[in-house]
């Protein structure tokens, strides 16, 4: 923890509920180049499990989830 991850795009999903964070995260992943990292910030309690599974299903890499009070920060690396 605490290491800086270089991010290339950021997506604010605060206040949005399932399926919005998943849908918007997918859209942003599509805009990344291979090797780039997306940071998604969400506060829907469902997002933790949903984003994890989305990233796994799409075959990308979830570098880290940082929990900060009621917010999640996801760092997603596009690998293909």
């Amino acid at each position, binding site marked *: 923890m605490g290491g800086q991850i270089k991010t290339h795009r950021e997506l604010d999903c605060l206040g949005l509920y*399932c399926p919005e964070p998943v849908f918007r995260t*997918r859209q942003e992943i599509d805009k990344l180049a291979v090797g780039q990292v997306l940071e998604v910030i969400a506060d829907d309690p469902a997002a933790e499990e949903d984003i994890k599974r989305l990233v796994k299903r799409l075959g990308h890499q979830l570098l880290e989830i940082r929990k900060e009070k009621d917010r999640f920060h996801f760092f997603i690396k596009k690998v293909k």
Partner: protein
Amino acid sequence: MPRKRKKLAIIVHSGTLDKLYCAFILGSTATAMDMETHLYFTFWGLNMLVKGGLEKAGLPATYKHMEEQLKKKLKEMKYPTPYELLKRMKASGLLKIYACSPTMEMFGVKREDLIPEVDEIAGAAAFLDLASDADITLLV
């Protein structure tokens, strides 16, 4: 070898907002997860494919008294409408929409009455054929 896409097949039988959301939230999430999605609309669901139908969807009689409150809340949540979810699925290129042929005849619905997103008018054999190799099959 590339992994075969997962496939979701849903029979949309209901024409009320609560159940349409069930089908469309699952469908739009499936396409976001790179799954092929097939929606077969029959009975009250088919009536939702008639132009203007999705916009008019409300709650069933038992919950009618909660409809106004729910719709207000959905707006506050900036929640996508069923038609917006359907358009998203379509834009992914992974959605196919089928309209049930006998239902169309029962309700006097013509091809030109349907929204342009409908791919095919189909029957039971078509659904069973595509569902027979689907990974997830649901009736809503």
